[in-house]
């Protein structure tokens, strides 16, 4: 095989990985803080895309402004959902999972009723293609990866430096101890799901110009997100990043070298093996 083809595969994998990373970071955060297996996360992504569509195409706002607005709006939706639906079920895996499925249904219907059933798309913001040693990639994808990187790094800085960030980390490690140290679990939960939802929305909004979106796109992504989260070790954010890229490369290479279904299979198989051979995931703690 030529070098350029190999390089192309590598680039594709990196792109997929960075997209997954942004999406799954929120999922990990929500699981880590609230132990909620949030099936509605993909729907938050979908809502993010539609929100950008609404602000950008229908209100004619600037794309980046719409992106920020979308993050805020969806973040608030997430917080509201947590307050109304998840609070009573805190710490119960399966009930909260079922609840999140119900939420997903409702979000889908809401999207259908508001935006209709047709596939939607947003005009590309960064037209053009760049060529790296024979591997070509559209500028918009590069930008998506860059912006996701910025967002994730920003989020990490927030997590490491700010008071709330430290509170979150404390809760992720040991809720009871954190509570004893006077951390307000409610605040942290709201903040956590808010940020998680905002990150999902950001992913949706960023990929809206690259791909097309419709009300039913959520669940497929959510499962990929779950694979990444489990692979990375449930509550470990660095693990999530690592896992996202691993899955990205698997998808890229196996699709290109074998075929798409085989790629899906590899994803599921790896998830199963990791969970059974190393339940704490790649970078998780015992």
């Amino acid at each position, binding site marked *: 095989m030529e070098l350029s083809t190999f390089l192309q595969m590598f680039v594709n994998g990196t792109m997929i990985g960075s997209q997954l990373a942004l999406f799954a970071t929120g999922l990990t955060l929500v699981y880590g803080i609230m132990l909620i297996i949030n099936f509605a996360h993909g729907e938050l992504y979908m809502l993010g895309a539609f929100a950008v569509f609404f602000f950008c195409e229908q209100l004619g706002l600037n794309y980046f402004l719409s992106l920020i607005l979308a993050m805020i709006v969806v973040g608030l939706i997430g917080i509201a959902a947590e307050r109304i639906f998840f609070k009573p079920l805190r710490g119960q895996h399966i009930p909260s999972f079922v609840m999140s499925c119900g939420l997903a249904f409702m979000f889908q219907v809401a999207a259908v009723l508001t935006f209709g059933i047709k596939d939607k798309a947003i005009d590309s913001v960064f037209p053009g293609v760049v060529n790296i040693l024979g591997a070509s990639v559209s500028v918009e994808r590069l930008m998506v990866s860059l912006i996701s990187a910025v967002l994730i790094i920003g989020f990490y800085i927030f997590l490491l430096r700010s008071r709330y960030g430290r509170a979150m980390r404390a809760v992720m490690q040991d809720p009871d101890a954190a509570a004893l140290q006077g951390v307000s679990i409610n605040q942290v939960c709201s903040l956590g799901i808010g940020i998680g939802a905002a990150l999902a929305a950001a992913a949706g909004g960023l990929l809206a110009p690259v791909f097309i979106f419709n009300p039913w796109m959520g669940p497929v992504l959510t499962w990929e997100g779950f694979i990444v989260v489990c692979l990375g070790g449930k509550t470990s954010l660095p693990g999530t990043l690592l896992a996202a890229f691993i899955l990205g490369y698997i998808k890229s290479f196996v699709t290109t070298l074998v075929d798409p279904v085989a790629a*899906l299979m590899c994803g599921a198989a790896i998830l199963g093996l990791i969970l059974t051979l190393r339940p704490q995931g790649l970078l998780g703690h015992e």
Partner: protein
Amino acid sequence: MNSNNRTKWISLIAVVILLFLIPLFVKSPYWMLVLTLMWIHIIVAESFRYIVTTGEYSFAHVPLMGMGGYASALLAMKLGLSFWLALPLGVLIAALISIIIYYPCLKTTGTFFFFASFAFGEVMRLCWVRFRVPFGGVGGLRDIPRPDAINIPGLPTVEFTFLTHVPYYYLMLVFMLFSLLIMYLLERSRLGAIAAAVKESKVLASFVGIRVWWYEMVIFVIASAFAALGGSLYAHYTTLLVPIEFYWGLGIYVCIWAVVGGTGHFAGPIVGTIVFSLVREFLRPIPQLVPMVYGLILAATLAFLPEGLISLPSKILPWIEKGLAKVKER
């Protein structure tokens, strides 16, 4: 206690008789179909709950249901076996496969088990998609033979064709009642008691001498066998198997039926399944809104009835009694 038991049995028998009489009232083939499918779904939901009695939630359950369907369908199509032979064999095969799937999963527990079982179930499902021979790929299997006629001397022959509705109804009803009875007895048995202990605390269970993984495996295999039974019945009823129908979609629904109905009580999944199936049918005029209604129902249930819909009567009846008392006072 004893009288309570009697009322219980009387009411149960009454209900069963009612179920057998339904075809006399309900003439519409459409409602026959809805009920027939409902009985199959009840088998699956109840067996799902049987797994939950050990405290684990399995996402491989629905794929294993599909496996039962594929196994018996292939036996009937490729080897030309009769339905009455293919069904038990299919169930057996699926049960054996469930061992392969659950063995690795048993190293995990809780959320990990949830996802591990999902992963292995999904791998199996993708096998059907990828290997067109013999599974037929995404197109699935078509023209799966229907059950051959039951021919008891002295009685009229019972034919199963695409036009027969009542025979199917009774077929599924009988299989459902049989499955429910067995699972009920199993839960009342020592195995059930052990499951309860395991659910409470695996550590302590092991320290009173229970081989936790072994009993879990036994329970999972039994549950999978019943799921496979449901799948096999489904296959020979619709005569069509498509892998996508055993994707997480149905898995989530089964989980919802069981949890919303109430996994704590034997009748929970039955209630859940019935409620959701009927809601689906009653809302046919507004299909787009069905998921919304599902969402509202389960949100309300989880918020106000933590033990599930099954606990609704016990929650409401006191109010009614109070109300009656007040009325009497006036």
